[in-house]
């Protein structure tokens, strides 16, 4: 979480001189009174929570639902960041909290919301509370601590938590934009999306055209993790040092493995990543060093993801643990039970689209990409060899799930 190196604008998301309200005003000026609807539409802002949903469409549907139900909507800044490999939301909340508060005030004002929440890691809340005390927003922001779980940031799980219920995802109908917190129409936006909105409102046309990326790599054998503001369309090879890497995990634990050689030339935008089966997700780019076993790394992550299943939907609860356990066997050198690989592929085909949330879909996608990209390693394992160096896990996984 150190400095930024990528080419950046003078007043980018993380470029402010400091997090205080005074420094924020000095760098960005006061928040102008504008209507975010048209601005967001023109800027083409896409959500930065992982799904990349168009923010304008979300704003519009919450406004429509609020008008139809005649209830004041709720706005939620989502800084949960359940993804263990990501650090961009936390970094943003530490370095530029007032951009997030500005964005929240903007959407709250435009939607006529009477309640605003900011959900984030408990460790960030004391500082955020101090920053909030400096502001005079018409709609007060309530800070909500988020439990460290992979699914706690999923919007319906987050709404349930804000209502005081267990943080579990629910079915997509009715959507939270119609019935969310307190049964009211609820706008849930990622904190980065809100910060970009605050810049767009100030006339920064390029704010929607870059993204925060959490970089994970090893340089000369030393782990390197930081968050950078990268213009969309930048080549992955210009963001990451790939000379020692064998593959890149694009999009984090809900993302896709791509061979390093191919990834280097991929551009960071939806259209360019789609042919590689990848998506920006929550903006994690991890360059797997060449001395690690990609299968072992994936198996560890998938074991974590399986343990993070909310345990509500049969396909997820019955599918992910099987896949995780099988992948764990395939990730070890030595003969695996015959037909195990085919079982994994068969189970993987049975999961997508059958959960309340997309947790099983994303996990299966990660597994499929690992089997494709690390097929040489699979063959090596069958022969009882592995070129991984054990004892130094690369991708972070919380010690005990839940």
């Amino acid at each position, binding site marked *: 979480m150190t400095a930024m190196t990528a080419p950046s604008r003078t007043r980018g998301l993380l470029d402010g001189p400091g997090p205080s309200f005074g420094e924020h005003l000095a760098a960005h000026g006061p928040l102008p009174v504008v209507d975010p609807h048209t601005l967001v539409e023109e800027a083409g802002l896409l959500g930065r929570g992982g799904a990349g949903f168009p923010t304008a469409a979300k704003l519009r549907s919450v406004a429509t639902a609020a008008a139809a139900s005649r209830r004041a909507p709720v706005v939620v800044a989502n800084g949960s960041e359940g993804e263990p490999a990501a650090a961009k939301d936390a970094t943003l909340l530490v370095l530029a909290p007032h951009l997030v508060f500005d964005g929240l005030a903007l959407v709250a004002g435009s939607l006529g919301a009477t309640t605003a929440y900011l959900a984030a890691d408990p460790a960030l809340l004391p500082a955020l509370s101090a920053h909030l005390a400096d502001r005079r927003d018409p709609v007060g922001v309530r800070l909500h601590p988020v439990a460290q779980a992979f699914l706690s940031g999923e919007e319906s799980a987050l709404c349930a938590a804000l209502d005081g219920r267990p943080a*579990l995802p629910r079915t997509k109908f009715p959507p939270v934009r119609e019935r969310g917190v307190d049964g009211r129409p609820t706008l849930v936006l990622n904190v980065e999306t809100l910060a970009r909105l605050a810049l767009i409102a100030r006339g920064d046309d390029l704010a929607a055209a870059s993204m925060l990326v959490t970089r994970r790599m090893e340089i000369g054998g030393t782990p390197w993790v930081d968050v950078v503001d990268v213009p969309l369309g930048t080549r992955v090879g210009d963001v990451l040092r790939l000379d020692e890497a064998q593959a890149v995990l694009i999009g984090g634990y809900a993302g896709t493995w791509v061979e390093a050689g191919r990834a280097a030339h991929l551009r960071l935008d939806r259209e360019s990543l789609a042919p590689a089966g990848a998506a920006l997700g929550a903006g994690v780019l991890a360059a797997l060093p060449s001395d690690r076993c990609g299968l072992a790394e994936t198996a560890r992550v998938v*074991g974590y993801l399986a343990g993070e*299943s*909310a345990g509500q939907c049969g396909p997820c609860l019955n599918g*992910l643990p099987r896949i995780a*356990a099988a992948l*764990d066997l395939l990730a070890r050198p030595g003969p695996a039970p015959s037909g195990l690989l085919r079982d994994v592929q068969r189970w993987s085909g049975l999961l997508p689209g059958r959960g309340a949330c997309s947790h099983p879909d994303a996990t299966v996608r990660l597994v499929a990409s690992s089997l494709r990209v690390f097929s040489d390693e699979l063959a090596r394992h069958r022969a009882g060899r592995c070129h991984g160096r054990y004892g130094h896990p690369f991708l972070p996984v919380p010690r005990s799930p*839940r």
Partner: protein
Amino acid sequence: MTGIVLWYLNRATGITSLVLMTLTVVLGTLVRRHGRIPGLPRFAVQGLHRNVGLLSALLLITHVGTAIVDSYVDIGVSSTFVPFVAGYRPFAVGLGTLAVDLLLLVLVTSLLRNHLPLRLWKAVHLTSYLLWPLAFVHGITAGTDLGGGWLLWLVLGCAVAATWASLAALATRRNTPPPGERAAAALTATSDALATGTPVGVFRNG
């Protein structure tokens, strides 16, 4: 002549309806336990539960209709929905009326399930555990054929089946871990099973 036909029809639909209701309860608990019937996929168990339930309701319409039309016993139209107003065995018939009322509620909420809050549907659906005993006691108190022949054994069989199914559903409910603990338990169980080469079972998700 018509009186005899009505009387036989009434008794026949009554007993068949009780048997089908028992089957519906057993199938319902099977759905709840994510159980299977050999040769049927799980969704078919659910479909069977639904269709057998609907069939028992259809038979019940005939059962109620014949009781009212039959002039030999004094059971008025009001007895269809208002309990304990019949001239003939008011208590026994009243229990049947209560069962009909509950069945109507369960039926309507199930047909409207997609338009109702899930919790409301569930709360109403759970009254089936009250509905069945009502229908059962109505059957043995208002019934006239339980002399000790095969019908008695059939009714007792129904009681055993419904009790066993209810207890099994209760046991499953107690043995299902809360959502937050299911995934971890499933992961441990699967890893152990794969390591020893034993088949992996089904994990319960509520």
